[in-house]
């Protein structure tokens, strides 16, 4: 009920403010009964066929809700009957009207609302008929004439008031996304688009990876031997410059880094180091390293001046350790 009251209020506002600018309906009204008041232009109805009792004078107006009607969207055809209830007027009884018909428009329901307003002893009665339609196609159409039959309560004969045919323009169907939900073609299109998007993404990801892989600098693997030989070359600069303590410091550094990288031998005291080098390579190389370290200490901490042969021997010892190959393993011999 509350819903209906709310709808009525909306319709009332619509009548007053948003009513479609429609041509005035041509009403076929019965001749007024003796003593009945005739209302203004085309808005009064009276019983034409032997009406009984003192019928009030009816005003009739019609409108559409909403104003713009689109195909496949419901709309209402509203007809309002209004009359002033005088003291000598009888109580009216209405016959259910037939729903006006129109081409391309399907009637889906009808209802009515009544409302009485009392103002300074003047009682106004409003009766609004609401016909619900579903436009099946667009274009111009006309809602058929609406006839309303009424009589005084307890009498036999009906009076009749009619609303003339009402022209309606139905606009083409509006696009609604929700309509696509059930559309099979749309679903196929959507799935195809989605698949295409996924395929495109995969293509770009893979091609991006390929590009990155192509751009990635190639890591050059430097072996401990190569690294040590490079360092050995740079240590030779000190020999040329006659900076022998620095030269031996360089040789020791080369040896220390190489032994750690290649054999995981940590530099922990001369005697132990010599023993471990001898074990990792051959004892002869261990002895050569021992001689190198003794000379290195003499040069660094006793101010000894190495002769050329000693320098050559030291360089050779380091180079031999670096270039040592375990022939037994490499050759796969007995």
């Amino acid at each position, binding site marked *: 009920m509350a819903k209906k009251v709310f709808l009525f209020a909306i319709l009332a506002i619509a009548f007053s403010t948003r009513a479609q600018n429609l041509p005035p309906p041509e009403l076929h009204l019965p001749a007024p009964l003796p003593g009945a008041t005739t209302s203004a232009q085309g808005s009064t109805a009276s019983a034409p066929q032997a009406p009984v009792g003192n019928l009030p004078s009816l005003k009739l107006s019609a409108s559409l809700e909403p104003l713009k009607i689109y195909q496949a969207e419901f709309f209402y055809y509203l007809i309002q009957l209004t009359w002033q209830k005088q003291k000598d007027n009888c109580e009216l009884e209405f016959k259910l009207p037939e729903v006006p018909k129109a081409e391309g428009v399907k009637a889906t329901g009808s209802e009515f609302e009544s409302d009485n307003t009392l103002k300074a002893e003047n009682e106004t009665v409003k009766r609004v008929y609401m016909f619900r339609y579903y436009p099946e196609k667009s274009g111009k159409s006309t809602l058929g004439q609406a006839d309303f039959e009424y009589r005084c309560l307890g009498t036999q004969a009906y009076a009749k008031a009619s609303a003339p045919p009402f022209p309606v323009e139905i606009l083409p169907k509006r696009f609604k996304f929700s309509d696509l939900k059930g559309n099979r073609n749309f679903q196929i299109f959507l799935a195809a688009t989605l698949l295409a998007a996924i395929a495109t993404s995969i293509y770009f990801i893979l091609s991006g990876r390929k590009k990155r892989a192509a751009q990635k600098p190639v890591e050059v693997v430097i072996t401990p031997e190569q690294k040590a030989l490079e360092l050995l070359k740079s240590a030779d600069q000190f020999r040329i410059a006659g900076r022998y303590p620095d030269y031996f410091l360089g040789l020791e550094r080369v040896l220390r880094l190489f032994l750690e990288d290649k054999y995981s031998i940590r530099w922990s*005291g*001369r005697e132990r180091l010599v023993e471990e080098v001898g074990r990792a390579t051959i004892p002869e190389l261990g002895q050569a390293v021992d001689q190198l370290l003794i000379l290195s*200490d*003499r040069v*660094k*901490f*006793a*101010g*000894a001046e190495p002769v050329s042969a000693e320098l050559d021997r030291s360089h050779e010892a380091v180079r031999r350790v670096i270039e040592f190959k375990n022939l037994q393993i490499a050759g796969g011999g007995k």
Partner: protein
Amino acid sequence: MSEMERIQELVEKESQFVDKLLSEVGKVIVGQRRMMERILVGLLCKGHILLEGVPGLAKTLTIKTFCDSINVKFQRIQFTPDLLPADIIGTLIFDQRTGSFNPKKGPIFANLILADEINRAPAKVQSALLEAMQERQVTIGEGTYKLEEPFLVLATQNPIEQEGTYPLPEAQVDRFMLKVLVSYPKKDEEKEIMERMTGTETLSAKPVISSEELLHARQIISQIYIDPKIKDYILEIVFASRTPLEYNLKGLEGLISWGASPRASIYLNLASRAHAFLRHRGYVTPEDVKSIAPDVLRHRILLSYEAEAEEIVSDDVIKQILEKIEVP
């Protein structure tokens, strides 16, 4: 011939007794090479040694064998709670015939003294011994008597029995040049010990050098060349024990109460030279310093309560310092 070559030649010639001596001691003592070398370092540098180890590790036998090999006078003093200073340094005895007091020299008048379980005697006895160690002379009554060179005190401490002991004050521990930890022998060494000690043959060492030769070797130690880089390395090590944060040793923050004293620098210098001598070298290398540093520093670095709570010992601290300080 350059000065360096002369020193090298001299050291090579004069250090020949080292191998002979160690070999002779080795006839009786199995293993314990490190302890024997440290005792020799002490003999060469006039530095006293504190030996710490559980009973039965041949501390006394090693020292006795050294005495036999060097042909010097040996005395062993067993420290007990009722020992008196006079029992060590001597006293005045009244002579009835002459009616005068004559000095009676104590057992300290020897070349090698073994102060066994030094922490079992009260402080007054410890002080008497430590004073004699420092001054190298003893006063009995009105007379002052010089102690005969070589004079070396080897004190022992037992680290496991602490009840009823008088721990040496830090200032007195500092007077020992080296604190040597005596460890258990290896398995094969112990097997050899077992066979030697259960046999019928009585093992003994014969004198291979004289005390004069030893004193002569001391003169040579002072000539051994130590490069300024090595001196700086020693200083870096000692200073790192005092201000570890300055050397980026953040792990040692709050663990050291007191760093090593200047005696540490002096003894590290001397002991490194002696170590080089043992290796027949006329110059010191960083390896000499690294090798001897734990024995010189371990009783000179005092750890905090935090370190004790975390069961950190001074050897752990020294190890960290030696790993951090850059070798020249």
